[in-house]
């Protein structure tokens, strides 16, 4: 319902023209036929699954995740909160629970963690002050200076073009994954394009990553995003980002590079001034559950990689590798150029059978397994990149889908005519009984 806003124009419920407009909008909107919605649902499901794959990649390369999120944490979701860098990768912001409709059950661990994260009440002006004190002299404008939170977003102007700068403070969830050490590891170039990334351990044991990349990993816009992430040995994260544009997402580039050099960014995140602010972050509830952990029956990334390698034909060299629960990738080289091979191994996918195998080049094997072959241009491919894929599912819903490209990574140009593995080889790999054994462990 419209609210009383006290303005002459909108203080009343929809009346007169507004009411008429509402009626015409509804009539017009409802006039659009939704006959194609089944295709839309199927398309949405496919995109969602791809997104999950990307997210899973992100779990492996923390920096990638953060790069994808851009500036996670500034919108109110936190980089390490429920959404996590990887989990939030697809959305502009973490959803807010709608008050009044939440279920009155015991909050999940994730929920508790999120609540704990939300309770960080550091005055934004304190964060802004530390930023200002640890960066070169310039004009600053910060958002929401009278508010509280655990991040600050400002626009910095040194006279050469305004630039968005943000700093977020978090507690690491520990471990090696996305919420822990993964954040200070450089991503694989297979999945994200960046100019430079360095990582290392500082005297005293803190770890630092500095990456000079782009706001969008696929570089659909040229906005650069340079970041420094510090993970202290006692588990705090200081995450600073700067852009060569005055705002994230969509603002025109205002200068060639973001204003601070890698050294200056490092100086900012490693400043001792953060310490009293970090101490104000609420403690994350202890949990035995790794937020990036497997769903039941999922094999781990290393298991998948190992199985995948064991199934490869002879004569291929592995140039790069990675993976996560249910997912693995290898970059192969047979001497004729690099070729990315990716595989997902997913139990309990029976619900998607119709969407995945409802159309296209599908055959059913004597044991009931469905096999679908696809050959086409790569969705995120650079110039001339093709992707060949074999999708398989058992009658019980155990899915193995493998694809191979004639390039060494997404968004890279073709390095060769065809992928390194033939369709027959891909089929043989996907249909190997080893996958079910690996997942049953």
């Amino acid at each position, binding site marked *: *319902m*419209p*609210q009383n*806003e006290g*303005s002459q*124009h909108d203080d009343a419920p*929809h009346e007169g*023209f*507004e*009411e*008429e*407009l*509402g*009626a*015409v*909008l509804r*009539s*017009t*909107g409802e*006039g*659009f*036929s*939704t*006959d*194609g*919605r089944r295709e*839309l*649902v199927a398309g*949405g*499901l*496919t995109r*969602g699954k*791809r*997104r999950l794959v990307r997210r899973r990649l992100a779990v492996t390369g923390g920096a990638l995740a953060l790069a994808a999120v851009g500036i996670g944490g500034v*919108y109110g979701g936190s980089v390490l909160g*429920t959404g996590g860098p990887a*989990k939030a*990768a*697809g*959305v*502009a*912001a*973490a*959803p*807010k*629970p*709608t*008050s*009044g*409709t939440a*279920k009155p059950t015991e*909050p*999940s661990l*994730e929920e508790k963690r999120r609540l704990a994260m939300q309770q960080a009440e550091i005055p934004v002006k304190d964060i802004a002050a530390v930023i200002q004190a640890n960066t070169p002299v310039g004009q600053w404008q910060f958002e929401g200076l009278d508010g509280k939170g655990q991040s600050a977003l400002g626009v910095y102007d040194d006279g050469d073009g305004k630039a968005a700068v943000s700093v977020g403070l978090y507690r690491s969830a520990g471990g090696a994954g996305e919420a822990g050490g993964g954040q200070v590891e450089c991503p694989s170039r297979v999945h994200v394009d960046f100019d430079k990334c360095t990582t290392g351990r500082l005297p005293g044991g803190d770890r630092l990553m500095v990456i000079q990349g782009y706001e969008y990993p696929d570089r659909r*816009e040229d906005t650069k995003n340079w970041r420094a992430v510090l993970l202290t040995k006692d588990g705090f994260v200081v995450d600073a980002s700067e852009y060569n544009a005055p705002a994230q*997402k*969509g603002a025109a580039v205002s200068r060639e590079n973001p204003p601070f050099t890698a050294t200056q960014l490092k100086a900012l995140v490693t400043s001792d001034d953060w310490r009293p602010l970090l101490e104000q972050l609420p403690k994350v509830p202890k949990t035995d559950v790794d937020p990036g952990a497997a769903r039941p029956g999922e094999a781990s990334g290393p298991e998948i990689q190992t199985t995948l390698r064991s199934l490869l034909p002879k004569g291929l060299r592995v140039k790069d590798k990675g993976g996560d629960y249910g997912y693995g990738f290898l970059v192969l080289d047979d001497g004729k150029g690099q070729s990315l091979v990716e595989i997902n191994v997913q139990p309990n996918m029976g*619900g*998607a059978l119709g969407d995945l195998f409802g159309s296209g080049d599908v055959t059913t094997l004597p044991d009931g397994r469905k096999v679908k072959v696809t050959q086409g241009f790569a969705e995120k491919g650079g110039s001339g990149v093709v992707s060949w894929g074999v999708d398989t599912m058992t009658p019980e*819903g155990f899915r193995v889908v493998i694809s191979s490209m004639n390039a060494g990574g997404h968004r890279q140009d073709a390095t060769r005519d065809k992928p390194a593995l033939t369709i027959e080889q891909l089929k043989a790999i996907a249909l190997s009984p080893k996958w079910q054994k690996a997942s049953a462990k």
Partner: protein
Amino acid sequence: MRKSRADEFLEFASARTGHLFRSACLLTSGDTHLAEDLTQETLGRMYAMWGRMARIGNPAAYAQTVLVRTFLSHQRRRSATERPLGELPDRAPENGEDPALRIALLDALAGLAPKDRAVVVLRYWEDRSIEETADALHVSSAAVRTRSVRALAKLRQRLGGNIAEFATR
């Protein structure tokens, strides 16, 4: 056994896709190809969040918000990539509907800035309050009010008598 993520999601998507698509058609002022793309993108985002985010209180409403944000971010990088996916059959006007008014409305919507259009769709198609609209768009309530007033003035000017005629029918 617990329903799989895909099953749960499909249930949600089957129920909501029609409405999402129609919202997208209004947001894109009748560009059904783009609307299909936005709808699929929105569903994809919802799927990726499904079950992993702390409970989304109202997934249907949240999906609308995701749609609007997806639309706006698409507008910001519009020239980047546009590829229509598939076709929906052209539709014939349905009973009681005035094709001229429909075209006039879509034209008038097309004349609005994307964010203004988003405000109109959220407030008058989705019936969201000013605060809810502000929240969905990541702007202040004041900004929504300003946009709302501006958009209504423009629409009123363009639609003028047509709309009153429709409403009194």
